[in-house]
């Protein structure tokens, strides 16, 4: 039972362009959503989060959009840089419970 889905296992984007990573969830009780970046042999690094009371949160080049009615969130990276190449995990949680991770999307930013 995949509560958090990332249907694109990989994505390639040209340097300087926008990267859009998508995530869908099934549990309507989720009220907090996060994006993590992970390099090989390292732990996930927190990028940005959004509470269910908002529909957008921005931090520098990273913006997360939340569409609660569609149970969908996305991460926009503008402009994309080669150092952004990593696996990106969407995560969600219900208050007081654990973080549920999606399977990840491997982003490759091509120079």
């Amino acid at each position, binding site marked *: 039972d995949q509560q958090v889905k990332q249907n694109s296992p990989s994505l390639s984007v040209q340097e300087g362009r926008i990267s859009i990573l998508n995530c869908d969830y099934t549990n309507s009780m989720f009220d907090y959503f996060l994006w993590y970046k992970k390099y090989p042999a*390292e*732990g996930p690094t927190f990028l940005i989060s959004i509470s269910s009371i908002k529909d957008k949160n921005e931090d520098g080049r990273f913006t997360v959009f939340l569409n609660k009615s569609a149970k969908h969130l996305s991460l926009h990276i503008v402009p994309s840089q080669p150092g952004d190449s990593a696996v990106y995990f969407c995560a969600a949680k219900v*208050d007081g419970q*654990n973080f549920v991770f*999606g*399977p*990840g999307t491997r982003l490759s930013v091509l120079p």
Partner: protein
Amino acid sequence: EPEVTQTPSHQVTQMGQEVILRCVPISNHLYFYWYRQILGQKVEFLVSFYNNEISEKSEIFDDQFSVERPDGSNFTLKIRSTKLEDSAMYFCASSGEANTEAFFGQGTRLTVV
């Protein structure tokens, strides 16, 4: 910048042996987690810990697994009798509040042979 530290970075053990994975969470954090990632698979929740007790655990976290916060700074995961399928990266994480981001350690790669 405070960080979660995990030791060892790599542990090789024989099947059936006990292993203890160690974590030092960020000092003022209250919520602690263990996750694992089998090679090529997703990050899976094992257990969460708050107020000196397990608050939630997954189906993976069976009787072979236990967690402890022995001294107020360390947070350990023990696997009593390791199996080949326990081979994975094990990540410790901590967060300050219930609904804030969790910060992850660099992981311990456990290899069971």
